[in-house]
């Protein structure tokens, strides 16, 4: 099953390698990993989607926690959170199909961000379900290229990834 982890890490060079090599060394499957700076410039935040069972996830979490550069690990899968991914899709786009594509884009509240001679680039954001659906909907128009960011996620309400700990103040 897919689990979503948010990981606060020191904004040090090498920290991404540490996390990535931990996954590869111990044979954990990463579905996606997104990383960037947070409200505190000394801290980066990773959102990692992992496909593993509960027992493995427990190990993943503990092993991540053991890394000195990892400040906090949260499995937010079962919590209230907003999860989003950005995707760019390049499809065939000669004039005959553009109308149809634009309708799809409309429905998904996506955007066309580039029009070439015979191709289109569509930008969409959303949760897993929406991203999956738009990919399916665009398949008939021949997806030439597809690039996605991986999921980022944030908990709803006043809960935060740093939790109650003072660590990140």
């Amino acid at each position: 099953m897919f689990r979503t982890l948010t990981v606060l890490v020191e904004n040090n060079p090498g920290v991404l390698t540490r996390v990535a090599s931990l996954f590869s060394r111990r044979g954990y499957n990463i579905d996606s990993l997104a990383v960037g700076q947070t409200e505190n410039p000394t801290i980066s935040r990773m959102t990692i989607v992992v496909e593993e069972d509960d027992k493995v996830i427990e190990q993943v979490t503990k092993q991540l926690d053991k890394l000195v550069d990892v400040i906090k690990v949260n499995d937010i899968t079962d919590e209230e959170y907003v999860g989003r991914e950005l995707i760019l899709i390049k499809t065939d786009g000669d004039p005959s199909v553009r109308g149809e594509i634009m309708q799809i884009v409309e429905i998904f509240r996506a955007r066309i961000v580039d029009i070439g001679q015979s191709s289109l680039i569509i930008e969409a954001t959303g949760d897993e379900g929406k991203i999956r659906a738009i990919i399916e909907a665009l398949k008939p128009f021949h997806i030439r290229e597809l690039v996605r960011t991986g999921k980022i996620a944030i908990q709803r309400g006043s809960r935060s990834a740093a939790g109650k700990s003072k660590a990140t103040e």
Partner: protein
Amino acid sequence: MKQKGAQILTKCLEEENVDTIFGYPGGAVLDIYDALYDSPLKHYLVRHEQGAAHAADGYARATGKPGVCIATSGPGATNLVTGLANAYMDSVPLVAFTGQVATDMLGRDSFQEADIYGITLPITKHNYLVKSVSELPRVIRESFYLATTGRPGPVLIDLPKDVCQKRVALSHPQSPQLRGYCPVQEGASRMIGEAAAAIAASKKPVICAGGGAIISGGSEALRELAELCAIPVATTLMGKGAFPENHPLALGMIGMHGTRYANYAVNECDLLIAVGARFSDRVTVKVEAFAPEARIIHLDIDPAEIGKNVPVDIPLIGDVRLVLEQLCRQIQGGNEKEEWPARIRAWKEKYPLKYDRKSETIKPQFVVEQIDEATGGKAIITTEVGQNQMWAAQFFTFTRPRTFITSGGLGTMGFGLPAAIGAQIGRPGETVFNIAGDGSIQMNIQELATAVDYRLPLKIAVLNNSYLGMVRQWQDIFYEGRLAYTEIGGPDYIKLAEAYGAVGMRVTKPAEVRRALDEAMQIKDRPVLIDFIVDRKENVLPMIPPGGTIKKMLKE
């Protein structure tokens, strides 16, 4: 006053109470060596950087203090790798310094550049590439803190040459501020209560003590717990010395080459109390069938060990010594189990470790027993890897912590001699014996020169079977005796020892073993190597074949 980075380094080491360093110089560490020239730190020059890492490791295990080693960039650094991996697997506190090309040369495949930071990521507790000299005091402070606290381990600091050369004013770092690192100390009281209740309720408990019992200084608390409730104590290979093996409650080692009674006890127990042990596959052998009747209490400082290999009923996370002390306070006396220790005593009498004591050739087990006798049981034993290691573990009666120094997790041939050097330097008053195989001793034999240089009176007992014996044993048992490339020659060890300036002896008859050992014990100003020509085809028994249960145990 401004100082060079290299001088700041030596000053910081002094502040960490370091007095002993093992190393090997080279271009990228010239500035550090220049600083060592005027420093009160004692530097031991080894003959190979792997030797430096293992010597620092042996020093750390024998003394409980962190070991420090140093190597130049490129090949010097990569030569440390096995030593770091070894220390990582066995949770040994090391701080390793490597030279590196100057920061403006990084990433250009410069002469003797190797990405040792990248290479050692998975085999260190933490590592650093220092890009600015101003970070150096903080990095060194953090490294010693990380290496020695929580679950100890090696930390590597990669030092570009310009960082060592740059002059700045020495700033004294404060205590380390690591928001991502907060090792636990005391155990949670609710869990302690549960553990105490489980112990009270159990009829057939067994303690299994691992390396953590030694690292934490928990031996006394362990003994107190065992005696409070008369709980028999087995150890892992790494736990040898945590509990006196001459104690009536001692079961010796469990696992693949453990005693029959320790394995029987674990198989039948209704409560297994793992104390600073990590359930390695050499202990559980077949993990699904391990301690099948038992609830499991697992005490460890590393939360990631809980549930990693076996499911745990009562986790106790914390410093082994502190938690054991907490546990002892919770347990009232009068919990002594009666029948269970009696049953175990019967097993011990019926199924002792054995070998042919009437043999006309020297049995390797006999040599180990004689070392025990000749030293009055008061020796620090290091081992190589293979049969020699198992016989050392089985036939020497360990009674004190930090006296059995062996490569447990990584199984590194070539560990024993440099580790003995480190141990002898750290504990000059002790008799240090390296129990060696003829294959392993040849892996770091160059360190004999180091031992001679520093007039170390350590002893090397080569159990010479002219085989890579443990591999030969597996070939005989599991590969129909097809002995592919395991017969191994060696030098004339007497000449070899003498060529290095050590004393060499050869012993071929059982009756001569003790005399040679007594003679070796008299030599105090240089190392002695004794070449014991032992029974070539002796096997280490008992043995539970990999993936097998005790039903599959090979007994003779």
